[in-house]
Structure formats: structure tokens, C-alpha cells
């Protein structure tokens, strides 16, 4: 049926004038894919779906949200009130907000798995270095976007999270104070901060969408890697449609079951997706006992916190990202997939564990023990990148098959 539609006269008329049908064919239908892609490869499509969901729900939320920290009585603000209005009085507003809040967490969860897949099967290696780097950029971009977004409800965690994280900027030498005031629009987090964060939270996802499209187009130039990590021969290549459209659709179905289970049964994600303290309106006079960023930011936050010196902490966090960017050049082994690289595989799994541990520590108030655990995990995180350039020298890779 789709073929018929794309071959129709109307489609031909459009294609002669815009090449639209050609793009659809190239990117969604004929795109040649190795036949051995497993379900780990569905996370790309799922992430794309979430991006669309976030933009659509976000636009609807923006129609009723008011970015104003002006007090409306009893310590509540116009922004906080408008969120509660969405939750109570706007038709299905609660559903849209929960989809957006759970969607943010789902987005990170899926992107982290997508990246883990890329690392496991060596998808960052030549010729996909640029693709990988764009991906890391997308991750950082997403983190900026959620950081802006989390301020908008103007609850206690919004306010104090933003205060703590923007404070970091102030530690940068020379330009720190100037930059801090620029970001906050004043000396402390307040109404101007809320206004500019709202503007940026609206703009950046649009830019993110463009970068993501570019990411997909770049993928379609270098083509998908596969779990075996060797080039597939002609006979093992199949078109994206219908094979991977149905496979990804099934993956999306499974994703939606989990997603909707959270949206309808645990919309605050057990206090992880919408933190309990964020149902208290922002109060600059009352510091919460325990300020922690949302879970998807905590690994990076913990790296920062592991270093006793603030400035070095920033440097450490920046280095954590730089290491990810440089991954294609740090790893010098010619073999892609971890299936054939026992040493890399073990190191990688430990690296994943270290990120989970970092995330755990970053989510909890500092205790002497958690500090030790957090620091150890930070060291493990960086050790991975330090060891990486050398392991190909002694690693005995398993024999690679000729074809997938």
C-alpha cells in the first residue's frame, strides 16, 4: 500500500518539485540495513518518538503555563499556580504534564541505553566517529534542556537545584561572576531566571530536533553497524521497510507499555521523576535538607562533587564529557564489537556499573561513606578511558567471522 502511495501521480508531482518522496524512500524505506540488528537497535527509533512526544506535550503545556515567580499569596507563585491549574482544571492537563515529566526520564533512560549499545558494539569507530560525537553533543544538549525545564514548576527542588547548579558557573575564574549573573539575570535565581529558562526551554528542543535529524542523516551515510561489527555482505542486507519498521514498532509497543505504566500508575516515578519536595513552592528562605538533581543528571553531578575543589570539580565534569567525545580515538583496537573483545568487554561492563554507582551517590546527601564510594566510582570512570588506548596491545581478540 505504501508503495502504491509513493508511486502515485500526486506523489510524483510533489517529488518533481521537492524530492520529498525521494527522501522518504531513501531514509525510511530503502535504507539498507544488516539483517542481524537486535532489539538494542530499537532505542534510536524509540528516542525519536519520545522527542516528538516531548515537543507536542511541551507545546500544549506552554499554552497554559505562566513563567512568573511573582507571588500569588501564601508563598505560592504564579508559575506554581499555573502548573496546578494544568493538573486540576485544564482538560486532561494532568495527563499531558505526566507524559512530559515521565517522558523526560524515559528520554534519558533510552538515550543511555542507546549509547551503551553504541559502546558495546563499537559503533563509534571509523567511519562512525562523527555520528558518535554528535550523539554526545545531543546528550549534553538534552541535559541543558531538562535543567531549564526543571526550573519551570518553581518548586523547592526547581529553585534550589537551579541555585546549586548555576553556582557552579560562579567558580569559573575571571568570567565566573559575570557569566553567573548573565545566566541568572540577576544576583540570585529569581523571576528573570525563570523567564529566560522558559524561553530557552522552548527554543533548545527545536534546535535539538535539527541536530537529531542531522544525526539520522549522518547515520544513513555511514549506515548501521551491527552486533558482530564486521561489514555485512550484499546478501545479508535488507531494506529498512518493512523489516525494521515492524521490528521497531514492536519495540515501541513494549516501550509504550512501560512508559504508560509509569504515566498512569507511578507518574512521579517513586519521587525520582517528579521529586516529592517539588510539590512545595519555591522558598528562598528555606534551604531543603537534601538538594539533589533529578536522577539522569546525578552521575555527572557526582563526578563534580567527588572533587573537593569546586573549580577542579568543574574541570573533572568537563573532562568526563571530553573523554566521551574522544572515545573513537582513545580506542585503538581494529575490532569493533565487544563480543570479540574479552578485555574491553569486562572493562566496559565495569564502566557501566561505575556510572550507575555515580548516579546513586549523586542522588543522596553526602555521607563519608558515599563520598568514598563516589570517588572510587569516579576513578573507575576515568580509568576506563586511561586504559583504553593500551588494551589493544595485549588483548587477545576472538576470531572474527567473515560475514555477519
Amino acid at each position: 500500500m505504501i508503495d502504491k502511495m509513493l508511486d502515485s501521480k500526486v506523489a510524483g508531482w510533489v517529488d518533481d518539485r521537492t524530492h520529498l518522496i525521494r527522501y522518504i524512500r531513501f531514509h525510511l524505506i530503502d535504507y539498507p540495513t544488516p539483517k542481524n540488528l537486535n532489539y538494542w537497535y530499537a532505542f534510536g527509533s524509540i528516542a525519536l518518538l519520545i522527542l516528538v512526544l516531548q515537543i507536542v506535550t511541551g507545546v500544549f503545556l506552554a499554552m497554559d503555563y505562566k513563567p512568573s515567580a511573582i507571588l500569588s499569596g501564601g508563598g505560592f507563585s504564579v508559575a506554581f499556580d499555573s502548573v496546578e491549574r494544568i493538573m486540576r482544571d485544564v482538560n486532561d492537563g494532568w495527563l499531558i504534564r505526566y507524559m512530559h515529566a515521565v517522558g523526560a526520564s524515559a528520554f534519558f533512560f533510552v538515550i543511555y541505553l542507546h549509547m551503551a549499545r553504541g559502546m558495546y558494539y563499537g559503533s563509534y569507530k571509523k567511519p562512525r566517529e562523527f555520528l558518535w560525537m554528535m550523539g554526545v553533543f545531543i546528550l549534553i544538549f538534552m541535559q541543558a534542556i531538562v535543567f531549564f525545564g526543571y526550573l519551570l514548576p518553581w518548586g523547592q527542588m526547581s529553585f534550589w537545584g537551579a541555585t546549586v547548579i548555576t553556582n557552579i558557573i560562579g567558580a569559573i575564574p575571571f568570567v565566573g561572576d559575570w557569566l553567573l549573573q548573565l545566566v541568572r539575570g540577576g544576583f540570585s535565581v529569581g523571576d528573570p531566571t525563570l523567564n529566560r529558562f522558559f524561553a530557552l526551554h522552548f527554543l533548545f528542543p527545536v534546535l535539538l530536533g535539527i541536530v537529531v535529524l542531522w544525526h539520522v542523516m549522518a547515520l544513513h551515510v555511514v549506515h548501521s553497524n551491527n552486533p558482530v561489527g564486521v561489514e555485512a555482505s550484499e546478501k545479508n542486507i535488507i531494506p529498512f521497510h518493512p523489516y525494521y519498521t515492524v521490528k521497531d514498532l514492536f519495540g515501541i509497543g513494549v516501550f509504550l507499555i512501560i512508559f504508560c505504566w509509569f504515566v498512569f500508575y507511578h507518574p512521579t516515578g517513586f519521587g525520582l521523576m517528579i521529586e516529592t519536595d517539588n510539590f512545595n513552592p519555591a522558598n528562598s528562605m528555606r534551604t531543603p535538607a537534601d538538594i539533589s538533581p533529578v536522577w539522569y543528571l546525578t552521575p555527572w553531578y557526582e563526578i563534580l562533587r567527588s572533587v573537593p575543589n569546586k573549580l577542579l570539580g568543574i574541570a573533572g565534569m568537563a573532562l568526563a564529557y571530553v573523554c566521551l567525545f574522544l572515545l573513537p580515538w582513545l580506542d585503538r583496537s581494529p575490532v569493533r564489537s565487544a563480543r570479540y573483545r574479552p578485555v574491553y568487554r569486562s572493562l566496559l561492563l565495569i564502566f557501566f556499573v561505575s556510572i550507575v554507582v555515580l548516579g546513586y551517590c549523586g542522588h543522596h546527601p553526602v555521607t563519608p561513606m558515599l563520598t568514598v564510594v563516589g570517588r572510587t566510582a569516579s576513578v573507575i570512570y576515568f580509568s576506563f578511558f586511561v586504559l583504553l588506548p593500551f588494551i589493544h596491545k595485549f588483548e587477545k581478540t576472538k576470531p572474527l567471522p567473515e560475514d555477519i
Partner: protein
Amino acid sequence: MKQTMLRLALLFCVLTPLGVLHAEEGPTLKKVNISLDQTTLRKGLNVFTDVCMGCHSLRYMTWRDLMTYPEIGLSRQDVDDLRGDAPLSARMLTELSAKDAMDSYGIVPPDLSLIARARKGHGAYIYSILTGFEHDPKGRVPDGNYNVYFPGHRIAMSDPLGWLDHDSEDEADLKAQAQDVASFLTFVGEPHQVERLAIGKWVMIFLVLMTFVLWLLKRAVWQDVEH
């Protein structure tokens, strides 16, 4: 090499839950059965308007909401009896002024619209607070202000239900009141939650069926590919 790494990973798995134990603090809350059926919610509403509203407001609830949310579903007559001169569209605000509150309690009692969502333990926290008034064993905090479940154990609210020194025959009644009002406040924190759960069931059934069909489709399409 691999062995050591596995051991390291194991070590982490052991250390991390230890951290959990470390992070938990405060007394364990009392267990309470939060129910959102109409009878409980109406009883809870009565406790709220009779007792709590002397000091606390619900800024996100209007009198009309008591009619329009089917979970409470009061009649116009019932609402008129409760609201007095206030218009239907008015919020359910206390008559206690902020100044008087400061004079009497040294603090303005917090709005309770979101209290069930904004505290760890949610409904159980409210229930525990209301039934947690005791005599301070050290005798420092005056009677009626000592509450083990409140951070710092000293609360400016003085025992609203009269829990302290209650007769044993009142116990069941007071517990029921606390449970009803905790349920009511849980409802007020998220008035669409009953609807959410009701819709959720159908959404889940639909998605499971849809995903099953997609799985069949996937199998059919992939049949001719050897993999």
C-alpha cells in the same frame, strides 16, 4: 584480570545497599489504609471543614469542586451549608488571618492542598502526625506540641484531634478521623488520580493487545529472512 573485575563489581553491589541504610533516617511512619471512596472522602471533608479549616486553607480547591469532582459529589444544598457567604467559585480558605496565626502559633499554618504530595510518606505522614502527639519524655516541649513524626519533634500545631490523653474508647474514633482526613487530603493533592487509574487500566489492556499484534506482524514479515 576478569576475576578481579568481577570482584570489584561485586564489592560495589555490596557497598551500594549499605549506603541506602545509611541514608534513611527518621521514625517509620504508621501504616494507614488510604481509600478514595466517596464515604471516606466525605467524612474526611467534614473533619477538614470542622477542625483543620480553623487554621489551614486549600487554595487549589473551590467550593464548587466539591460538587464537580464525582469522587466527592456533594449536592448543591450540602455545599451551600458548608460555604456560608463565600461564592461557589471561592477557594476553600481559612478565616484565620496570617497575622493572628503569627501571634498565636509563631508561624502561618501551611496550605494543605498539596501536603499529601509534598511530604515523604504522603497520606501515612499526615496520619502519623495526627496520631503522633505524645508527652515529651525529656519534658522540654509542652504537651500538645511534641510529635515524634515531625522533623525536630516540635510542631507548632497543637494536637488538633485531641489525640494526647484520649480515652481508650475514643481511640478507634480518632484513628478513623485521622484516616479519613488523610484520605481526603490525598485526594485533594491530586484530584484526578481516581480517573487516572481508571483510564490507565484500559490503556494498558489496549497497549498489550496492540503490542501482541505487532509481534505477530513482525514474525510474519521476518519469516522469509533467515536470521
